């Protein structure tokens, strides 16, 4: 067959799909609606109009009167708003970290806890609850700090172990190292729990996760990590597409694969550790959300990463509404709600995603 350059006018349209206007708008509307529902729904119903006017009344120079009385205002801005904000930050972070982990490990089942974040945070929190709390030395921040430190230490251990086992060349060694570290931390955590059955209840409720005690200071502590981490991950969205070609090809396209992978893992881990330390372990968000985007929009990380961030935030805000309203005034642990809806959803993903990576 003869190969000749075709006529100049037959130039094919070459574009990367990216987020796209429609998917972007739909996700934005979903997020805004979730936030509105999160602020409006509760034992005291507050209308969306009142919420908007109340918010605007704080803007200096605008002639808007505060429509809410002191109690409603306190409920809205001191109880619900920080809770919605924190759920949004944590949901967005877990989803974007999950998407990035799936890209970097080229494994659709990878979640943000893959490299030992969950085990490390769980162990750190358990130790803090058992020893610091019983010694009455703990402040409100002891448990989150211990969880954060435990998570970072566990992932660092995974990385060191993985590298020594050859993870420079294969991601398999890193994942195996993660399993090893997670198993070890789980063993230590179970041992400590068994020795201190009196705190079992509070360890358990921390592990299941939730936002019932969310305050603005939780938001302030978590937000910078989430902002920086998700910015780094969103900036890597095209690099994640290149990495989907495998280490060899990405490398032959000029990408320093181990450095890119390290940057992505560090960003995802820091953000996840910060999220876990203020919310406990919330399963499945990091898997459900990115896979939904893949099924509905595109498998390109240019779409998956930014959309996961927004959709994950909206998803966890809505899940939190369910967690606090289904059995109101009692609260379900949010981990139970995400898993209850996540497991059947995940079954569907597994059935339909053959061939999708």
């Amino acid at each position, binding site marked *: 067959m003869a190969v000749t350059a*075709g006529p100049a006018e037959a130039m094919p349209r*070459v574009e990367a799909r990216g987020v796209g206007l429609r998917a972007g708008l739909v996700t934005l509307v979903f997020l805004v609606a979730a936030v509105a529902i999160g602020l409006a729904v509760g034992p005291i119903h507050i209308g969306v109009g009142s919420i908007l006017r109340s918010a605007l009344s704080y803007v200096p120079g605008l002639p808007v009167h505060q429509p809410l009385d002191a109690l409603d205002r306190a409920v809205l801005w001191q109880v619900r708003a920080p809770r919605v904000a924190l759920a949004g930050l944590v949901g967005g972070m877990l989803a974007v970290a999950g998407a990035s982990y799936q890209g970097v490990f080229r494994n659709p089942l990878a979640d943000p806890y893959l490299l030992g974040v969950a085990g490390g945070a769980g162990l750190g929190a358990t130790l803090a609850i058992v020893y610091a709390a019983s010694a009455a030395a703990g402040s409100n921040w002891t448990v989150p700090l211990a969880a954060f430190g435990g998570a970072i230490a566990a992932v660092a251990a995974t990385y060191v172990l993985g590298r020594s086992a050859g993870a420079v060349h294969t991601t398999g060694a890193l994942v195996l190292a993660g399993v090893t570290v997670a198993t070890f931390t789980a063993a230590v955590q179970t041992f400590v729990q068994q020795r201190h059955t009196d705190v079992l209840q509070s360890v358990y409720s921390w592990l299941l996760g939730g936002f019932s005690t969310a305050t603005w200071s939780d938001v302030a502590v978590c937000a910078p990590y989430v902002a920086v981490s998700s910015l780094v991950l969103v900036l890597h969205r095209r690099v994640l597409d290149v990495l989907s*070609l495998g280490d060899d090809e990405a490398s032959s396209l000029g990408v320093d694969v181990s450095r890119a992978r390290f940057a992505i893992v560090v960003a995802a881990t820091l953000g996840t550790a910060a999220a876990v330390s203020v919310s406990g372990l919330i399963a499945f968000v990091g898997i459900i959300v990115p896979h939904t985007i893949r099924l509905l929009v595109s498998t390109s990380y240019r779409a998956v990463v930014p959309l996961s961030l927004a959709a994950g935030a909206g998803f966890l805000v809505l899940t939190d509404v369910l967690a606090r309203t289904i059995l109101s005034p009692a609260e379900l642990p949010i981990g139970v709600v995400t898993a209850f809806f996540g497991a059947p959803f995940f079954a569907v993903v597994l059935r339909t995603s053959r061939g999708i990576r």
Partner: protein
Amino acid sequence: MIETRDLWVRFGPVAAVRGLSFRAEPGGWTALIGPNGAGKTSALRALAGLAAYEGEVLLDGRDVRRLGRRAVARLVAFVPQKPETPPALTVAEYVLLGRTPHIPYFGGESRHDREAAASALRRLELERFAERPLGSLSGGELQRAVLARALAQEAPVLLLDEPTTALDLGRQQLVLELVDALRGDGLTVVTTMHDLTLAGQYAERLILLDEGSVVAEGAAAEVLSAPNVAAHYGANVHVVSNEAGVFILPVRAR
């Protein structure tokens, strides 16, 4: 132009390539041949900067080790034997990824990048496949998409590891004709090849490797002799040589 001087590739105590030296000129096609485990792929991977090596690899006379990874990627395009082709990616998106060495790390494609990818698609007659997901292509179409991605890289050196594996006879010829046309554009082509007859017909120079060492080098008529094939492949063959080329025919030993 790509050149190696005394190239060694080692895996622990085992040397996969032992002192390979050759030079490939623009518009030339060099084929690395040899039995399984001879070191063909290791040599090619070293040329692509994917395997650690001793000795020198020079691109236009410059030591590859002194060039950055991105600079090398602008000069050398590499297609592995089994390229990773994410099934949901469209052909256009896949080919566009070939522009990576020209795009800033955190940046997006420029107009020029999109045009280069479009002209690579056109060069391989893939215009009407541009919006199709890779998973929907046949083996031959997929191999063309992979070549288009390498071509979009706009690198003067093209390294192909077994470009015709898993293709039927007609598709093999098609792909090799395409590669031949590309070297007509001035590309330096280095391939590894299993099929000796095809290697002899397309590459103007063959390098026969056995256990990492060069055991024969030159035009098809010199390298593809029955004694060479018997000694290094352990194969019993009948060699037919005429004006159409050199043909290696396996003969069952009795």
